[in-house]
């Protein structure tokens, strides 16, 4: 089947990122992104169907086999799986939570992923993000919605010096270019 692949918002900009070893920048490919909101009864089954239990502690990520369950609010989670078709995950969670009050939305095309990695990644992010990104205040496994300059992002620390940024696609060039600007002093 000939399939038309939608272009990603960073295809052009990210084709030739500046080579900065202390803060490498990568535009991530398509991913499955689902937003799950639900009451107590539906939370457990949804996590089981997704393969990762939904974190109950604020601003935490649970991860397994390349799948991430991000706490975004007390009844709101983002389920993220890089390079995965969202449809089977969606169907599995819907089946597991049938009859239980919840809302499951496929937002895969809404945002795009950027990874920034290296010993100066937190420094570069800190130029636009008002949070304390030290390992004590923002440890590995923490995630949150926040701001990068004027754009809302979802920020996840997946390793001591690796951050995953999820940004709405129309804001992606803005965030990318400001990250590039922040890296210029290391080039």
């Amino acid at each position, binding site marked *: 089947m000939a399939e038309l692949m939608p272009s990603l918002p960073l295809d052009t900009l990210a084709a030739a990122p500046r080579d900065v070893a202390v803060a490498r920048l990568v535009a991530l490919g398509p991913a499955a992104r689902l937003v799950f909101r639900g009451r107590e009864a539906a939370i457990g089954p949804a996590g089981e169907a997704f393969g990762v239990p939904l974190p109950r502690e*604020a*601003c935490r990520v649970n991860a397994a086999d390349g799948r991430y369950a991000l706490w*975004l*609010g*007390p009844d*709101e989670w983002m389920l993220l799986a890089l390079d995965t078709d969202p449809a089977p995950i969606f169907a599995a969670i819907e089946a597991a939570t049938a009859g239980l009050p919840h809302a499951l939305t496929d937002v895969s095309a809404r945002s795009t992923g950027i990874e920034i990695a290296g010993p100066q990644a937190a420094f570069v992010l800190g130029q636009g993000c*008002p*949070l304390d990104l030290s390992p004590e205040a923002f440890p590995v496994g923490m995630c*949150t*919605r*926040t*701001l990068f300059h004027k754009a*809302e992002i979802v920020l996840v620390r997946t390793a001591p010096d690796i951050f995953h940024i999820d940004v709405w696609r129309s804001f992606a060039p803005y965030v990318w270019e400001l990250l590039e600007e922040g890296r210029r002093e290391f080039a």
Partner: protein
Amino acid sequence: MLIIDCPWCGARPEVEFAYGGEAHIARPSDPSALSDQEWADFLYNRTNPKGLHAERWRHLHGCGRYFNAVRDTVSDFFVVTYKAGEPRPDAGTEGGDR
């Protein structure tokens, strides 16, 4: 930058928040039974105190939840924040965590 304690997420910078007006204003259960003056009071008239003020805030660029805060309108000092639905803590106490 002002630091505000979100009851869910903890201490966060002010730019992540949006102001939501005075807290603890319940919509009248039977608006048609009210006089025009009472309805106008509900819609428009606020206490506007000089001093401690209970108000709604929303952690817009965070967990997205509304919560309530007691703030001193003279010093802009946040005395305490608490989840929506919880009663206002004693106004006279110097409670809170900052």
